[in-house]
């Protein structure tokens, strides 16, 4: 066993241990889990929804995780379980806001909001900013598929759309974002 494998094993053991302790009510263990995962969860939420909601939603994710820890059985890594829970919280928030209305119309032009700012140098955006300016539907499909690695069938089930719509939204998002690649 080399040092890297040993370190990875110890890290995984530590997270699993904290998950078990947190499930028994140990808030200190849960805080360690929070510190380990907050950046990833916050980034996911920020990319899926508006940045000004990211803080509140991230807190919601961890509160929900605390409430649901008894259902974590350890079959998957804790990070995977938490990530999936975060996606569910985001999608639940999306429904609450009603932002899904009209967001998956295939005739929608996802380039409109992005390209309007691109031509003004002082407002020129980097890739993340351009991503944030995509319409909700295209942005969420792009984040779930290209950033988070979900398949179109999974995205379709999550968002209540057919895989073909997911593919179409993904293509529109990519076409918009290619103008914001670091050249």
């Amino acid at each position, binding site marked *: *066993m080399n040092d890297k494998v*040993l370190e990875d*094993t*110890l890290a995984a*053991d*530590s997270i*699993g*241990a*904290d*998950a*078990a*302790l947190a*499930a*028994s*009510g*140990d*808030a*200190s*263990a*849960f*805080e360690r889990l*929070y*510190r380990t995962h*907050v*950046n*990833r969860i*916050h*980034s996911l939420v920020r*990319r899926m929804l508006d940045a000004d909601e*990211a*803080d509140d939603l*991230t*807190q919601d994710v*961890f*509160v929900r995780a*605390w409430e649901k*820890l*008894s259902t974590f*059985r*350890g079959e998957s890594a804790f990070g995977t379980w938490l990530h999936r829970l975060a996606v569910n919280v985001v999608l639940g928030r999306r429904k609450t806001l009603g932002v899904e209305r009209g967001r998956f119309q295939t005739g929608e032009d996802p380039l409109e909001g992005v390209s309007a700012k691109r031509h003004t140098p002082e407002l020129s955006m980097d*890739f*993340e900013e351009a991503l944030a300016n995509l319409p909700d539907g295209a942005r969420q499909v*792009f984040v779930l598929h*290209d*950033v988070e690695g979900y398949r179109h069938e999974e995205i379709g089930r999550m968002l209540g759309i057919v895989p073909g719509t997911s*593919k*179409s939204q*993904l*293509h529109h998002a*990519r*076409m918009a*974002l*290619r103008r914001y*690649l*670091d050249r």
Partner: protein
Amino acid sequence: MNDQWTDRLSEYVDDELANGERTALEAHLATCAACRATVEDLRKVVARARALDDSAPKANLWPGVAKRIGAGKVVDIRSRRFSFNVPQLIAASIALMLLSGGGAWLALKPPQIASDGPFTPAPSQGQLQATWTGKTDAAIADLQNVFDRNKSRLDTSTVRVVQQAFTTIDRAIAEARTALQADPSDAYLNLHLADTMRRKLELLRRVNALATAQS
């Protein structure tokens, strides 16, 4: 650029086209510079997405979470519905050890072993029904080999103290293994063994780091 293939280029990049469509599109790409450039850009977008870095929130969100979950208050664990399997209990013991040197756990549940009796040699690994120890055994063996190679870099008194600690830990491991032979599924004994093995791992890592620093 707006031909019949434009809207299929992402599917091509993702290798989601049927064989016939892929062949036809590749024939098109051989003659269409605009589509070739778009495919290249789309691949860069995918690579860029995968390389996005996670960033920390600007504010510390933990106080808000802590307040909502009641952190800081005494939690009655009987009010929380939970169940552990043995690996989870083992993992919990590791964390307890890291936090408190194992003392807290030992105070909660003394191991069901005879600590006053004569020292019993460790049974072979094959005798144990608890198979989870294999990976940790391998890690300990690797680190022990490193220590054996490097211990000459440490002064004699340090080596003596470390060897005494190893003797104590090895004895505890052997006792736990013996007790587990009688009841391999006993969660508390598994916890105790995991806790003790983890102590040896940590000690080996520290002393190896110290030896390396001396070189």
